[in-house]
């Protein structure tokens, strides 16, 4: 187990180094796709930290991501605060929000949790729009920095790698073991002495922190930000789909899901710009129906069958 664990960490290390060279070999169109892919790799890996072991499908990614992007934008445009100060504040706000949501909702199970997180993200979007319209004047906000596409790419890569290492460490910790037990049977977990609510809230806070940080880093890319853009529920759904496509039972699953999905998605948005939501829905159905355990699950069942025969 330990040997296997270090092997996967080494492999990821090699991948990170290789990925760091992407901006040197390409630019323009493909670099922009690489930035989008890196953004979703970071978001989907952060999502899997919490949702992988617990099987709680969270649609709150958009809320955390939005907090990151929006706070940077409003801080810089309305209050003249520097990007880096906002980059430090926004994830902490997201962590506090995650703790509050967690304390209030993690007693909910299954579908109720899903709906609550979706409703919550929409509520925050509405609230932020309302505050922006009524108290802060202008609706649009500008995030003007010196960052190039390359800088954003490397920062996102750094976040993705950090999330992965944290996940790897959690996997080997008592907290990770507790999460595995909770995913197996929450009722049993409580009777084994696990404070299930606390364990889940901690993981949810970590997910919230990094999702907001991704929102912060991506904000300069949009330049012009309005609440509906960064609090888009589409981000939440995309993250879920990509993580499920890759498979959530392994930390590297989402990475495998993101890259093909981004390429397919790019083709869809270019060829059928008016029907993206339709295709998003269709791909969701197809993944859940044909690949319930994702690509990782498929690979593992194939290798198991190969070994058995």
């Amino acid at each position, binding site marked *: 187990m330990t040997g296997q664990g270090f092997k996967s960490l080494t492999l990821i290390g090699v991948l990170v180094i290789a990925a760091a060279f992407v901006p040197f070999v390409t630019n323009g169109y493909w670099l922009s796709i690489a930035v989008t892919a890196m953004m979703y790799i970071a978001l989907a890996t952060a999502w899997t930290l919490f949702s992988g072991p617990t099987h709680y499908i969270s649609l709150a990614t958009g809320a955390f991501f939005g907090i990151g992007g929006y706070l940077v934008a409003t801080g810089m445009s309305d209050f003249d605060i520097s990007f880096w100060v906002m980059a430090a504040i926004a994830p902490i706000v997201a962590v506090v929000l995650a703790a509050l949501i967690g304390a209030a909702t993690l007693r909910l199970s299954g579908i109720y949790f899903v709906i609550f997180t979706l409703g919550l993200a929409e509520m925050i979007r509405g609230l932020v729009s309302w505050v922006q319209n009524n108290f802060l004047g202008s609706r649009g906000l500008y995030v003007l920095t010196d960052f190039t596409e390359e800088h954003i790419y490397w920062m996102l890569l750094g976040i993705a790698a950090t999330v992965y290492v944290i996940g790897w460490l959690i996997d080997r910790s*008592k907290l990770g*073991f*507790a999460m*595995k*037990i909770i*995913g*197996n*049977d929450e*009722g*049993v977990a*409580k*009777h*084994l*002495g*696990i*404070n*299930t609510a606390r364990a889940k809230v901690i993981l949810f806070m970590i997910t919230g922190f990094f999702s907001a940080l991704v929102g912060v880093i991506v904000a300069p890319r949009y330049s012009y930000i309005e609440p509906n853009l960064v609090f888009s529920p589409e981000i939440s759904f995309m993250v879920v789909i990509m993580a499920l496509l890759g498979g959530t039972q392994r930390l590297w699953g989402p990475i495998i899901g993101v890259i093909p999905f981004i390429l397919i998605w790019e083709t869809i948005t270019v060829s059928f710009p008016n029907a993206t939501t339709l295709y998003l829905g269709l791909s969701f159905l197809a993944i859940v129906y044909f690949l319930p355990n994702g690509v990782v699950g498929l690979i593992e069942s194939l290798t198991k069958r190969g070994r058995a025969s």
Partner: protein
Amino acid sequence: MTPPRTLLKVENLTKRFGGLVAVNDMTFDVKEHEVMGLIGPNGSGKTTTMNLISGAFGPSTGTISMNNRVLSGLPAHEITRAGISRTFQLVKVLPGLSLTENVIAGAAFGHKKRWGAEAVDMAHQLLIRVGLETQIDLPVTSLTYIDQKRLELARALAGEPEVLLLDEWLAGLNPTELQDGIALISDLRKEGRTIILVEHVMDAIRSLCDRCVVMNSGTKIAEGTPQDVLSDPEVIRAYLGDE
């Protein structure tokens, strides 16, 4: 010789589910090193009483205390940490974990916490102890019913609880398995563990229990040695009805 001290105290315990009174004003003590049987016909409130002790839910009124510390009202994980472990009426192993991990799960967060190599050692010892040494590397899902029950017992023992709750641990076993099961619990008894067991198997009650509390319709109707309570006319009426 000093008389055995009272470990667990249940006082005026009542649990209502809406209009239904599942447990009604139960009072009993469990002494240290004692095996106490909680018996009674189906639906008499035995499992509910076990769930109240383990903290699966809180009582409507009444208290449960151990070593003079009130436990009733605490969440299940704190009650476990205080030293009460249980098995479940419908066996609940953790299917995604290995056998060893299942037992470590009991050791890592329970009353006496163990982690790392120490926990692995203890898990192996306990798995051998309950008779699962040849199955150690099998997937949990391939275990037979009795082996799953053995695994659950090992998991419950892993936290070194002060009180062990066995909820129909012997139910559903065939006659040979039953003998093995009784022998296993008998060993635990000889070790001086404090156990509350809910049981229907009369042989097991006679051979294992020092004392029995008999429940019917949520109320305690008798208490005493197995011989005494099983010949009590009211107990016989509760089980078999009026003639």
